[in-house]
């Protein structure tokens, strides 16, 4: 089966998923704004923007900070859940044995059929937040900040694909994907500094956060919230980190996934 066919089947699957599941589509639209409103609303109820700047230690706009955080968090979660969770979905609907037996490697099938969903979901969320960013930052300021976020979520997807493929092969081998995915995803986001900067976490947690690709994606997206212009050096450094992580995680996944898949097939973990 050509890789192009896999990609095409992913596109068709997503279009029909949203077409036949309108409440899920509505939920996709509402969820990011709901998260943003909840955090910002509770924040202003408890304190102020001044305290926020003091606690974060950088002069940032809280609204833009959380828009960037929400976008980067949602897309990171989407990759992890989209690839790892698809194993669960295929197991439930009984298609996992067919995928494991198909000529392409399971991880390749899962990643390639997932990419259209990532592009679609990321596009929807960017389109949702873009008007708010333009209203708050003006046209040119908004365009500049939006470009940083787009850069972060595009580059951030590359190491996350390898990371999630590794994660998937681990889930396939332990047979407890639903019970692991549920708590591991928020934990990864917590260590990645999803809404609370990773540099404010305890030392031991900072060590874990440095190994996670989502940390750099979220940090890069958050540079868009800095009042004034973010330093070019910092942007370059984060891009470098994401590229390096892409190489490391995708090479590691290439080596280890086959072993995970073989173990799953040997043990009949379907």
């Amino acid at each position: 089966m050509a890789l192009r066919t896999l990609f095409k089947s992913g596109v068709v699957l997503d279009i029909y998923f949203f077409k036949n599941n309108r409440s899920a589509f509505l939920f996709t639209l509402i969820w990011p704004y709901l998260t943003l409103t909840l955090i910002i609303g509770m924040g202003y109820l408890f304190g102020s923007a001044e305290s926020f700047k003091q606690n974060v230690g950088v002069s940032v706009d809280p609204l833009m900070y959380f828009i960037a955080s929400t976008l980067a968090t949602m897309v990171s979660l989407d990759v992890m859940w989209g690839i790892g969770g698809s194993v669960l979905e295929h197991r439930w609907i009984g298609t996992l044995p067919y995928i494991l037996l198909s000529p392409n490697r399971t991880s390749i099938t899962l990643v390639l059929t997932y990419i259209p969903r990532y592009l679609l979901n990321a596009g929807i969320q960017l389109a949702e937040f873009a008007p708010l960013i333009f209203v708050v930052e003006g046209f040119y300021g908004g365009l500049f900040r939006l470009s940083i976020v787009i850069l972060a979520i595009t580059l951030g997807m590359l190491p996350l694909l390898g990371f999630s493929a590794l994660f998937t092969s681990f889930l396939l081998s332990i047979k407890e994907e639903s019970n692991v995915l549920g708590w591991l995803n928020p934990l990864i986001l917590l260590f990645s500094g999803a809404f609370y900067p990773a540099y404010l976490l305890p030392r031991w947690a900072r060590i874990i956060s440095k190994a996670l690709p989502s940390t750099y994606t979220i940090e890069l997206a958050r540079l868009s919230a800095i009042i004034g212009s973010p330093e070019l050096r910092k942007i370059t450094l984060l891009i470098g980190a994401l590229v390096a992580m892409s190489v490391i995680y995708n090479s590691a996944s290439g080596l280890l996934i086959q072993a995970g898949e073989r173990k799953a097939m040997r043990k009949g973990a379907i």
Partner: protein
Amino acid sequence: MKPVALVRMKAVLYLHTIRLWRYKWSFLNMILSEAAWVFLFVLGSLLFVPKEQLTTVVKGAFWVIVAWSMISNFSSLVGGWMRFFISIGMVEEHLLRGFSPFKTLLGRLVTGSTVIISSLLFMAVLVKGAFNVDLLTVDQIALLIIGMALLAIESLSYGFTVAAISMRTSVPGNLLEILNLGVIGLMMIPIHSLPERTRLIYLCIPYTAPSHLVKIAISSVPPELVREALILSTMVCVTMLIFAILAMKLANLWIKKNGVKAIGFW
């Protein structure tokens, strides 16, 4: 109590306790993930708090989250279980033996309470580790118990109403999640930040009066409108309970007449 009723009660309790044990990894996952998600969002909001007010705010936020966890868990664990119960064909089996399926659902209290209490303790450990705030020290324990008991009855009534509705029509779980998140926003509002004229109206909204009592019990808000909150929360509680009982009776009658539709809560 009649011996048959006692045997049935024992069977319901046994069913839910044994399911809790058999699905222990799933429930452990539920406890860990719920605490982690809540912690993730709350950490973001706490960035707005001045350092000197952190202790009071963290304590207030924690107890509101416990209250929300109760509402959310009872609605999903009680209301949501009906779908499973319908899909395995157990509603008809129970009706044929003259036992209301809603009475079986009452045993979900075992599951719900275990998840809520374990999440509460796990969250307390997490928050204490992060902010060094003792969350379990309460100034007015009686008021806290009353507030929590009223919240439990209100949320259970809500769960049973959802379960009864799900017998006749579909209940989209996603939209209930949104509603539950709206509730947490409402419960977070300190009553003294509202205009004086609207405070009593605010307390009439389900869950707000008991959560106001909880906030007073832990001294996170000044002790204002205690008597009013007690009266209003009891009234709302009784109304919700009556509504749930009526909904269940009507659903039972409807099933007997029209049969079970495998719809449920999804």
